[in-house]
């Protein structure tokens, strides 16, 4: 997740004439069913952002992020959903302010079922007693005045 200062925008001319980072476009990564290794992350040489916030997982679906509300927090945090079942909250200097572990809080709160993105037929013979409870937090919303964050999540069971 990145934070940009709107006044530091790259002009159309500079954008059209910039030399892409040689490391860009070398993979065929697809967030929907791919995965990635944090070790493969790099700072793009054309990066004009102020801050980069890391640690969450942007996978499976279009994960969403927001500024915290102006009223109760003076917009001093940014936060995001994550494929690992947590809500991540950062300070503006990219240090982690906290996480909310939705996956742990909801574990086995519903009967086991397979996620829609896990291809293949439901196997009635499969032993789900050994499957693992998984949660993907797609979006989160910080209440404008109450100390509350609502998460929008999918729950599914993954083979152990």
């Amino acid at each position, binding site marked *: 997740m990145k934070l940009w200062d709107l006044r530091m*925008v790259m002009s159309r001319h500079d954008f059209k004439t910039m030399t892409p980072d040689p490391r860009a476009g070398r993979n065929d990564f697809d967030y929907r069913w791919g995965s990635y290794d944090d070790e493969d992350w790099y700072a793009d040489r054309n990066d*004009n952002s102020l801050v980069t916030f890391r640690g969450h997982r942007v996978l499976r679906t279009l994960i969403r992020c927001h500024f915290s509300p102006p009223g109760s927090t003076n*917009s001093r945090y940014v936060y995001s959903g994550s494929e690992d079942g947590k809500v991540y909250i950062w300070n503006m200097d990219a240090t982690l302010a906290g996480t909310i572990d939705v996956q742990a809080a909801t574990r086995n709160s519903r009967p086991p079922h397979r996620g829609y993105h896990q291809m293949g037929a439901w196997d009635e013979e499969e032993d789900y007693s050994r499957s693992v409870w998984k949660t993907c937090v797609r979006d989160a919303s910080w209440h404008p005045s109450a100390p509350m964050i609502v998460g929008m999540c999918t729950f599914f069971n993954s083979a152990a």
Partner: protein
Amino acid sequence: MYDTSNPYKWRYYKTVEFPDGQWTLTDASLSPDNRYLAYTSIRSTVCLAPTDPNDKGDPYVLDLAASTPGPNTGWRPRFGGSFGIWSVRFSGDGRRLVAGATEGKIVVYDIESRNVLHTFEGHDADVNAVCFADASSPHIVYSGSDDKILKVWDTRSMGGDREVGAFVGHIEGLTYIDSKGDGRK
């Protein structure tokens, strides 16, 4: 829809549908006056439903593929004249919608006149995220795409598909954009 007047005790009050939606609902955006919810599916239409609990009517269906001639409308049909919308937002005054769609498309729509104001091929891949700038700059639109670039558009000077600037640095596609609303971030 839920009444969250008491944030610790939500009260369900009604369900609205997307007629002929495809696969999933992709986005939803509440109007600044809280009176309407705009929501999208992988279609070129936007549904507009009143949030009033007493209004049980069908949602309005706005056609963002309508080739109504407007200023700088560069609409060229692909895939039989239709596309799918990934993201939708109201403008700060609630009078316009901006939508990000398949094939790099961005559409600005005027709700009251039911007209497409601007359509542009803004990116090389799906536009997963769009938003208007803060209320003091209603002519500025931001778009984020699977092509890894966040672009800035000015509806006062949309000559063809020309962005006014770009924010670069993401090494994979953009999934969402939020504006702090202070004109700076």
